[in-house]
């Protein structure tokens, strides 16, 4: 389809008004509520956004003010965001699972006057902050459940909020159109949190015109139609979900579907049968692990079908063809079961996806493509084109995107440096943009190289590329992704920078190991108990040995331990998008790391853990350290 004229529709609300009037009867989004999919046309969406926008003006949101939005992915979230843009405000999405301190930091940084919350859970979080969020004058909440007990004057219920909008509309029906018309392409629209693997997140300022033009570049590479369906499952505050849902849905009018809850999302996705999907690497990994878990339970015939199909499929994939036997016998029904039957384009991004997981889905016939980008550059700017055999690149850059590799070593590996005309304006309220040089090049801090076809291959964060004391360079992330392809390994952290050899702290994938334990009649109680079991160690040692076989001798893991708990964003060990924070791990688990390299066979640790409600507790755990024979497997 032809994209709209971005000269004429230079802001998101202008385009929304266009869609809402020209395509008023076309379905724009669906939400599953009480077990039933409800449809909203573009006309409905515009009407809702209009009321919300006018209600915001009544709460004295003025052009340039920041409105924060926090809650589960729902149409309301998106309507509120567009409404903020309509009145010239800046939207700031907060992650649903953000903890109080983080929320306070961001709300104060953005000086947000109004916060739109989904339910009591989010309201609780804000009220507990007391007078630590002095700028917040209004807390709008959508779900009244459990709210009766509060009498805070800042609170306003969704119904009362909308009623204010209706009053404004009645007294001044032209107000909304005036507000929309006042917007310009160069206005700031969205504050997007950067992932902040090292420190507090920063807020990148994204402008209407630039962001829309950049998303149009994406659509040139990977087009979508008004008859296509997308399921909104990733956190809305994340840059790529903003690209897909807040901007691309306006540009291409692809229908956005909102699942009933996080727990039902995969099932709801199957009901929709989306044509386009974007999932985080961990979701792809989890899906692949689930498939293999279910195959473990299947009868012999089905196991044979799966294994044969998978083997034939992967062989065919590596030769650049498809195997019709495997497609007919295995993959057709498997794709249907997973809800991938109608997928025209699937993407993964946010972190690296291991090549084995990648092949698993490609073999199945899911057209999975790796993308690469940063918040500051309006999300993805390279994407695989979906043709040819390419398991490790992130594809070619979009039109107008310039890409170069600085300080390349003998193999061409260096820092990825990039710029394009539609990137972010700068960080909010901060004059300095240390990563952007005078000519507008953004130094990403990622290591990578360009292959012969000019495609970008991303290796790891530059500062994470490590060197052993013997002088061997390695990428921890590369090895971690290999380990995570094992259905039994959930998270892992590969160590070895400045050390004599490589080792790893592993977290078991509880669901799978528990199933395995049941089958093997290994008794256990909790996660920690199962992770400490000697037979679990044997199991994982076997998995690590398999990965070791595929690695050069200097990069093989010599020792590992199984952590007594899962790595958790609430403990600061992962970012909200679930990237490992290495500095935190190094500091928190320093005693474990020291023990691994001191050669001891076990280590005890008192660790502080943060529960979901923010309370803290301590766990005292004894963990064994397992040795692996480094020279057991000679390279072929």
């Amino acid at each position, binding site marked *: 389809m032809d994209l709209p004229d971005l000269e004429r529709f230079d802001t998101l609300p202008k385009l929304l008004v266009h869609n809402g009037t020209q395509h008023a009867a076309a379905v724009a989004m669906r939400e599953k509520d009480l077990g039933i999919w409800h449809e909203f046309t573009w006309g409905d969406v515009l009407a809702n956004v209009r009321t919300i926008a006018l209600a915001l003006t009544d709460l004295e949101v003025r052009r340039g003010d920041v409105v924060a939005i926090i809650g589960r992915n729902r149409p309301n979230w998106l309507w509120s965001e567009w409404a903020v843009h309509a009145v010239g405000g800046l939207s700031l999405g907060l992650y649903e699972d953000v903890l109080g301190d983080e929320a306070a930091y961001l709300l104060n940084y953005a000086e947000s006057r109004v916060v739109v919350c989904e339910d009591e859970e989010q309201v609780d979080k804000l009220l507990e902050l007391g007078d630590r969020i002095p700028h917040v004058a209004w807390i709008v909440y959508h779900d009244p459940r459990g709210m009766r007990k509060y009498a805070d004057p800042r609170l306003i219920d969704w119904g009362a909020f909308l009623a204010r909008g209706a009053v404004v509309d009645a007294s001044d029906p032209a107000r909304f159109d005036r507000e929309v018309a006042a917007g310009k392409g160069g206005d700031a629209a969205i504050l997007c949190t950067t992932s902040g693997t090292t420190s507090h997140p920063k807020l990148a300022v994204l402008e209407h015109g630039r962001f829309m033009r950049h998303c149009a570049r994406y659509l040139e590479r990977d087009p979508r139609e008004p008859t296509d369906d997308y399921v909104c499952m990733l956190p809305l505050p994340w840059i790529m979900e903003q690209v897909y849902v807040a901007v691309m849905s306006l540009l291409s009018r692809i229908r956005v579907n909102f699942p009933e809850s996080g*727990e039902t999302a995969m099932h709801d996705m199957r009901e929709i049968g989306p044509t386009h999907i974007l999932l985080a690497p961990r979701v792809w990994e989890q899906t692949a692990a689930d498939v293999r878990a279910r195959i473990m339970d299947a009868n012999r015939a089905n196991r044979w079908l799966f294994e044969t199909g998978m083997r034939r499929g992967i062989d065919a994939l590596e030769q650049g063809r498809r195997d019709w036997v495997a497609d007919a016998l295995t993959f057709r029904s498997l794709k249907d079961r997973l809800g991938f039957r109608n997928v025209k384009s699937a993407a993964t991004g946010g972190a690296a996806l291991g090549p084995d997981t990648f092949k698993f889905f490609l073999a199945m016939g899911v057209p999975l493509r790796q993308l690469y980008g940063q918040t500051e550059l309006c999300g993805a700017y390279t994407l695989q084109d979906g043709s040819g055999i390419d398991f490790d690149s992130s594809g070619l850059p979009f039109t107008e995107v310039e890409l170069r590799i600085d300080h390349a070593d003998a193999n061409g590996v260096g820092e990825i440096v990039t710029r394009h005309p539609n990137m972010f304006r700068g960080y909010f309220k901060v004059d300095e943009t240390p990563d952007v040089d005078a000519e507008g090049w953004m130094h990403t801090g990622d290591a990578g190289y360009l292959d012969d076809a000019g495609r970008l291959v991303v290796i790891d964060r530059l500062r994470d590329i490590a060197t052993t004391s013997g002088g061997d360079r390695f990428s921890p992330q590369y090895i971690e992704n290999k380990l995570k392809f094992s259905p039994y390994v959930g998270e892992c952290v590969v160590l070895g920078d400045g050390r004599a050899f490589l080792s790893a702290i592993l977290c078991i994938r509880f669901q799978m190991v528990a199933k395995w334990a049941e089958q093997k009649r290994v008794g256990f109680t909790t996660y920690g108990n199962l992770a400490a079991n000697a037979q679990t160690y044997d199991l994982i040692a076997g998995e690590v040995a398999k990965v070791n076989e595929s690695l050069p001798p200097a990069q093989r893991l010599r020792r590992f331990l199984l952590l007594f708990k899962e790595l958790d964003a609430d403990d600061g060990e992962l970012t909200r998008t679930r990237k490992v924070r290495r500095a935190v791990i190094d500091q928190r688990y320093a005693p474990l790391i020291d023990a691994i390299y001191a050669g001891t066979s076990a280590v005890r640790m008192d660790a502080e853990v943060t529960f979901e409600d923010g309370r803290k507790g301590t766990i005292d755990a004894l963990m064994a350290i397992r040795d692996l024979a480094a020279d057991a497997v000679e390279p072929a």
Partner: protein
Amino acid sequence: MDATQEVPAGRRLRAREIGDVLLEVRDISLRFGGVRALSNVSFDVRRGEIRAIIGPNGAGKSSMLNVINGFYQPQEGQIVWQGEPLRKMRPHFAAANGIARTFQNIALFKGMSTLDNVMTGRMLKMHATWFEQMVYLGRARREEIEHRRYCETIIDFLEIQAHRHTPVGKLPYGLQKRVELARALAAEPQLLLLDEPMAGMNVEEKEDMCRFVLDVNEEFGTTVALIEHDMGVVMDISDRVVVLDYGELLADGTPDAVRADPDVIAAYLGVQPD
């Protein structure tokens, strides 16, 4: 400025006022042959409150609930339901008048889905004939849609959407308890009897269940009478507590009063606190 901050830790601010007496049991005595399960027990349950019944094993707690919903017939005594004295409570009368319950040992239809189990809670509210239901026309269709919608709000409320179509026998214990609560709520009860709703649960499941019981009380205004062994739970969520011991009423009052009662300490908790 912040209303929540004035509430001392561990105590909740009540969103609803406690009303008049909903149910009263007077001088109830229940015998099984020579065994006296209950002797002259009297107490009342007020509209909107959460009433706990506690006591050691064999104190007669479950018997008391069974008397209230008419499953057992006491030899002596009287039950007053909404000001109307009844010589005997009958199970069908209890169900039709808004008394719903859950059981100590889960009593669900194991082979049926969560949704179907919850729908059975609406049975008494369906009026279509079996023929209408068979051909799914007119009244049957209208009723089915209306009741399904109500059940879905309960499913949503108790956050069991992901298990809507799962046979309940396959669900973990904690979730089965929740489904049973959902079925009881589907009957839109005035009085909800919960027989050890948190038994056999881990800490997290217990916290969830407490949350749900409080939410039910608050959102639907449902009066709750519950039997529970976990003293922490009882003290946290109930408004008033009845203590039974060997079928006799030992104490009746607020959690703090009951906790301080020397008889209760001696009989139930067994040790003198510091």
